[in-house]
């Protein structure tokens, strides 16, 4: 195991997100069964895992949208599930979230979407808001699209606008939900560099949920691999690449056969086909 977890010395980065023994279920279906995970300040932490392992659910637990059945998710040292609405909103103002589908407000144009959190939380003069918004739009390459409505954007462009909106208030933590899905290679490269640059220059703590093993490996400081409601492996991308765990290797190489089930539980295939033919 790397220094990330085992050596919390005096100069070790501060823990900003700490999930301990988290259990969460949707109906009778358990999603997390004793999840332990730590995110440290100033680092890019990747959360990977097969579809349906609860990666997005983990983000919703971190932002306090849903609460753990048991266990504790602490953000900035506070149990996010125990916060009152006012405290929860104060904590959320220190976070930025990039949603998988962008989640842009469809009645506002690109400029107003990015300006929205600034207008809601500050009394900055319009001239300063304009500079802030244009700076962030320039960073994602969409300054020229400021007057477009969300319906006029492609999926990738919408994600980039959502990223500009997520960073406009200079949050301490940025949470990305599948940021690379559906991006063309140029946009993907730009977004990857942007995530890295914001982390390097502004020391923003980043949590990136993604399937994209190779892209993540180029920027992540630390990676968690989730499966069956638990962390099955963790370490730097290089450590995971060297891992001899069958689960890690199956995920890294994209194999259909292995400990991680590809097929949803079903009756015997041959028997079912025979039933149909009967």
């Amino acid at each position, binding site marked *: 195991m790397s220094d990330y977890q085992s050596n919390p010395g005096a100069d070790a980065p501060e823990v900003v997100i700490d999930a301990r023994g988290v259990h969460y279920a949707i109906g009778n279906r358990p999603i997390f069964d004793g999840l332990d995970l730590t995110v440290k300040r100033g680092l890019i932490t990747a959360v990977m895992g097969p579809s349906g392992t609860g990666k997005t659910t983990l983000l919703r637990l971190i932002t306090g949208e849903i609460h753990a059945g048991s266990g504790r998710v602490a953000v900035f040292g506070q149990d996010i599930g125990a916060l009152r609405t006012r405290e929860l*909103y104060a904590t*959320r103002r220190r976070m930025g979230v990039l*949603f998988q589908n962008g989640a842009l*407000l469809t009645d506002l144009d690109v400029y107003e979407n990015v300006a929205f*959190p600034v207008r809601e939380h500050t009394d900055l003069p319009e001239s300063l808001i304009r500079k802030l918004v244009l700076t962030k739009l320039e960073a994602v390459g969409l300054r020229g699209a400021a007057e477009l409505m969300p319906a006029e954007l492609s999926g990738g462009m919408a994600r980039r606008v959502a990223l500009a909106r997520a960073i406009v208030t200079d949050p301490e933590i940025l949470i990305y939900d599948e940021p690379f899905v559906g991006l063309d290679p140029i946009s993907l490269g730009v977004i990857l560099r942007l995530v890295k640059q914001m982390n390097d220059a502004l020391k923003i703590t980043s949590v990136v949920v993604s399937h994209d093993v190779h892209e993540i490996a180029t920027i992540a400081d630390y990676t968690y691999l989730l499966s069956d409601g638990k962390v099955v492996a963790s370490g730097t991308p290089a450590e995971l690449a060297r891992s001899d765990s069958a689960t890690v290797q199956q995920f890294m190489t994209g194999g259909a056969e292995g400990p991680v089930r590809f097929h949803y539980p079903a009756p015997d295939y041959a028997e079912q086909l025979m039933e149909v033919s009967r």
Partner: protein
Amino acid sequence: MSNGARVGVLELVRKTGETSVFFLRLLAACIPALGRPRLIIAQIYNAGARSLIIIMLSGLFTGMVLGLQFYAVLNRFGATEALGTAVALALLKELGPVLTALLFAGRAGTALTSEIGLMRATDQLTAMEVMAVDPMRHVVAPRFLGGLIAVPLLTAIFTVVGLFGAQLIGVQFLGVDHGIFWSQAQSAVALKDVTEGVVKSVVFGAVISLIAVNEGYHSEPTAEGIGRATTRTVVASSVMTLLLDYVLTAIFL
């Protein structure tokens, strides 16, 4: 009690409780929302101004039909000079508030439900919550207040246009004296009648807007779920309008 009936009663109790809690949260959110008049004015425009054409056309035709029907009835008793009175009271106390409410539910109530439902389905409400912006305050309360303000205004317009329509038929085509029509209408209408119409329109506006935003906010985030919520808005709004109309009429009599 059969199992089905028990489930039905439990569902009714659950739904009533959910709506009551939602209403209390909405009332709490309305106070800060009043400090953002721009959002409310935008919703008055969306729900009210955009319903103007349908309200004015319906008001005109309703008034014209009233003019014809009342003239035919009053003519049997040689009392066509009472046309202004009959039309004014019918429009002011009943048809204005009720028809405007039913039209508003179909035109603006459904739009409110589907808009909020789509915002839920596309994570816009979640995005606001995560940005520490309360959607109740930013999205739901302005739409509720917009509807609450728009319905009485639309009712007033419906009633005025309806009176004009009745006058058009009664005076211009059927020959009732112009002066008698208006003086009868004016002398027969008391402040109590105007109050009845205003109270009804405010209550209908509040109930329809509450049903519309509640259904949208709690709709299942799927195309089918939003469709069902929109239908529930029209059905519940229409039934509640007619039910409350009876209750309010009984109170005012």
